[in-house]
C-alpha cells in the first residue's frame, strides 16, 4: 500500500519535472517560463521527496529530505523573484 502510494507520488513528481522543463522550452517569454520553472522546483521536487520519504525507514533521512525540499523551495521562490526583477530592470534600462 505504502509502496504504491510512494510510487505514485514519485511518478507525479517526475511528471511535474517534465511539465516544467517542457514549459521552460516551449513558453514564449521569460516571465511565463519563470512560471513553468517554479512548478518543477516546488511540486516536482516536493512530490518526489514525499514519495521517497514514505519509502525510507530512517528518521534522519526523512528530515534530510524535508530540509532539501525546504531549501529548494525557498531558494527557488527567492531566486525567481530576483531573476524577474533583474530582467525587468534590464528591460527598463534599454
Amino acid at each position, binding site marked *: 500500500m505504502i509502496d504504491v502510494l510512494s510510487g505514485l507520488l514519485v511518478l507525479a513528481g517526475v511528471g511535474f519535472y517534465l511539465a516544467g522543463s517542457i514549459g521552460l522550452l516551449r513558453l514564449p517569454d521569460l516571465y511565463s517560463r519563470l512560471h513553468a520553472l517554479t512548478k518543477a522546483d516546488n511540486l516536482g521536487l516536493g512530490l518526489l521527496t514525499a514519495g521517497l520519504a514514505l519509502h525510507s525507514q530512517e528518521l534522519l533521512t526523512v528530515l534530510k529530505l524535508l*530540509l532539501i525540499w525546504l531549501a529548494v523551495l*525557498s*531558494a527557488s521562490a*527567492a531566486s525567481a523573484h*530576483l531573476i524577474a526583477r533583474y530582467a525587468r530592470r534590464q528591460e527598463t534600462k534599454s
Partner: protein
Amino acid sequence: MSATNLLVLDGLLVISLVGLAWAALAGSDARRSVILFMAFGLVLAAAWVRLLAPDVALAEAAIGSGLAGALLLAAVQEQPRQPLAARTASNSNPNKPGLSVALQLAVSVLCAALAGTLAWALAHAFNSAPQNALPRAVSSNLEASGVSNPVTAVLLNFRAYDTLLELAVLLTAVLGIFALGPARPGYQAAGPVFDGLARWLVPVLILTAGYLLWVGAHAPGGAFQAGATLAAASVVLRLAGRHQIGLPQGRALRIVMAGGVGTFVLIGLGLLVTGRPFLGYPPAWAGGLILMIESAATLAIAATLVLAFLGGQPRPLAVRVTCGNTSATPGPTGKPASPEGMRGAELRAAEVCNRIPETQKRC
C-alpha cells in the same frame, strides 16, 4: 538500474557535458559563458556521482558550480555592458581575433594531436589490467589511518604532503590577490526578499559545513567541501550588503589564513620531536590529529575563498571613517601594496584610500 538505462544515462550526461563545454567556450558574451560554465559544473557533479566519486561530487557541487560561478559573475559584472566595447574597438568582430588564420589552424591541429595522444594513452590504460597496488595499499592500511573514508585517509594521512603543499598554494594565491590591491566595494543593502533568503541560507550553510567536516572521517565530506560551504555563507552575507560577513580582521585574519599550513607543520614537527616521521601519525592518535588539521584547514580554505570573492585585501572597517580625511592626500602610489609590511593600520588605511581613485579608472 538495468544496463540499458545506465547506458542512456551515461549518453545523456556525456552529450550534455561536451555540448555545454563547447557552448561555454564559443562566443564572445562573457556572461553567457559563465552561466554555461556553471551548468557544466552542475552536470559534472552528476557525472562524478555516476562514476562513484561522491567526495569529488560534493566538492564540484560546492566549488565548481556555486563558488566559481559567483566569482566569475562578480568579475563579469565589472566589465562594460557592451562586451569588450573599448578593447576590441579596432576589431569589428570580437569573435575573430587579430591572430592569423595560420596560427589558429596550427593551434587547433596541435590541440587535436594532444587529444589524440591523451586518448591513445587512456585507451592503453583502460585495456591493460587495472593497477591494483595503490588501492590495495590504501584498503589494507585504512585501519591504521584513523579515518574510515579512504579519500580522507589518502588526503590527510597517506599523502598528507600533497595536502600540506596544496594549502601552501592556496596561501600563496591569496597573498598574490592581496598584493594586487584592495577589495571591490561592497554591495548596497539588499531588499526584503534577498535579506530573507540570506537569513535562513547562512545558518543552514554554516551548519552543513560543520556536518561535512565531521562526517568526512567516515563518509564523503571533509575539509575542502566544508571550507567551500562555509565560504558560501560569507559570500551570501556579502551579496546581501552586510558589512560584517564573518571574516576576521587584521591579525586574526592572518592567523586564520596561515592556520591551515601552520597546524599541519606544527603537528608534523611535533611528531618529529617524539621520534616519528614527519606527519607519521601514531594510529591511536591519528583520528584526533586529522580532525584538528581538518578544522584548521576548513577555516583557512573558507577564508581564502571569501578573500578570492572579495577580490583583494579587505578594507579595515576604520577606513570608512578615515577615508574622507585621508583621500585628500595627493599622489598616486605607483608601487603595488605590500600588505605584509610592518606599517600600522592607519598607514595601511591611508594607502588603501590613496589607491581608490586609481582603481576607479577601470572600464
